[in-house]
């Protein structure tokens, strides 16, 4: 039984890795107090999704999807998910930039980076 589970894990290890990374990212987003660590969690979460897409696009033994001498008969890796993830990376960069600039502004206003302290400071006036 245990061996079966382990074999299942190994045969689909790329998806398991994506899921584990995703959960690490979600954990950091929810449980970390420091706002910058939350953004790092967000980035891990997004990277896990990129990995998921890239790994399901892979074809065993496939080559890069560039025109080769053997013509369209060659075995290619599916290029579409890569292009999609390029777009998602752009989105991720934009979100990170906005999030970081918000954190900088929050720090300038309150001089704290910690969520609990932030709630404390907000309650004070």
């Amino acid at each position: 039984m245990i061996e079966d589970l382990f074999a299942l894990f190994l045969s689909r290890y790329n998806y398991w890795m994506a899921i584990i990374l995703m959960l690490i990212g979600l954990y950091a987003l929810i449980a970390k107090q420091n706002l910058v660590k939350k953004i790092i969690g967000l980035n891990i979460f997004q990277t896990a999704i990129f990995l998921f897409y890239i790994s399901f696009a892979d074809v065993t033994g496939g080559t890069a999807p560039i025109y080769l001498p053997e013509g369209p008969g060659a075995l290619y890796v599916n290029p579409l998910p890569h292009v999609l993830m390029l777009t998602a990376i752009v989105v991720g960069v934009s979100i990170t930039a906005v999030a970081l600039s918000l954190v900088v502004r929050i720090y300038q206003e309150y001089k704290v980076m910690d969520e609990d302290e932030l709630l404390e400071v907000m309650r004070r006036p």
Partner: protein
Amino acid sequence: MNAVIAQLPVLILVVPIVGALLILLAGKVNRNFSYPVTLATISFQFAASLILLSAVMTGGTIHYYLGGWPPPMGIELVLDAFNSFVLVVILAMALLTAVWARQGAALDIPPEKTVPFFVVFQLLVTGLCGMTITGDIFNLYVFVEITSIAAYVLVASGRGARSLIAGFNYLVLGSIAAGFIVLGIGYLYVATGTLNMGELAAMLPASYGLATVHAAFLFLMIGFSIKVAFFPLHLWLPDAYTESPAVVTILIATATSKVTAYAMIRVIFSVFTPQYITESFPVTEVILIIAAIAIIAGAVLAIAQDNLKRMLAYSSISQMGYIMFAIGIANQIALEGGLLHIMAHAVMKGCLFMVAGMIIYRTGITGIHQMSGLSRTMPLTCAAFALAGASMIGIPPTIGFMSKYYLVLGAVEAGQYLAAAVLLIGSLLAAVYIWRVIEIMYFGDHHEGALHSGPEAPLSMLVPVLILAASCLLLGLFVDIPLEIIGPAVTLLLGGS
């Protein structure tokens, strides 16, 4: 002329993007140039959406292939009865908000920030148009993110430092939602190998039994539920609506939430099918129960608030429940009511948030208990609030009554009498929180004269509010006109011809 109309679906997206950068460059020359460019671009988009709606109503669905590549190779823009109707509604709201913003923006946005503010405002409207007309599900995600990033920035641009925290929380939850949406799209791609919505609808039924498809559906549902602030996932909404600038609250509460609800309905009914949610993976009951809880809980929380904007924000959660309720019933009449409610809620909530902004503009008051006797100094504003409030409660013959009437009819037809009762209870609770404000405005003692010294708000703010208040009444009286568009749209959604 026909050649121009054929290109309008893409021009409605490209012109405002170029316009947004023109705002940026014109703003470098003179700050005052930025507003006219914004108004001109949004007016163009609104005119284009009207032309497209009439073209769709006469000539049927429009398909536009970007780069001349037909799907599945390329991305297509699709305009049918459903989304061209949504497009007209949100662009009308965006136009009125832009008119309101001429003086309303100065309330929260410092003068040196007006240029970037209008650039992001324009990008938000563009993103909403893109979400509405795209026919490719990954493209939908990209436009969701363009819209969301613009919304995060706008929410955080309020004068108070609290708006930064509201913006940050919105960003964190919104990004998790977006992650779930991409995951769902990934599962759909794994199951079918296509991203075009039309092709997905044709290819998915073959694999309805697969766990992959169920996972995709659940991920998409959870992602969109966070984005529309469907009840247990609404935590970002009250702060974002309360702390953001008045203009931004109006735009997000009317246009953004409606387009996100549209995207959700589109995914449920046009990518998946009504058969999927009723037979293959029966979730309508669950959606109905959560929607009922959302209607009641949102209204109860709204009653407990003293800040007018926060009260309206909780009321939005309750009203989004009505739209989800239509999905839960999923028959012709209820969905007609749901789509009608998308328009009705945009009109009346836009009017109410505009009034809240005008009260702050003239008197600086946010608390409801301070508004006693306000009707004596701002009679037109308060009258607009009363009319839109009546529509929110659902007093005939307003548009709010008509949409709820259709929802109740749909629920009764489906045999869901308990659910129909929930709708009526929701209306009663709405009467409690709206009437409380009206009572204080009209019958409260006018004791704090100094606070209410301001006269009516300026004309550029008053005109949009009065237009919206009048349309609450007129759309209800002439409800046949929107229903002529909604009827075919619902038939399309339910898979008829």
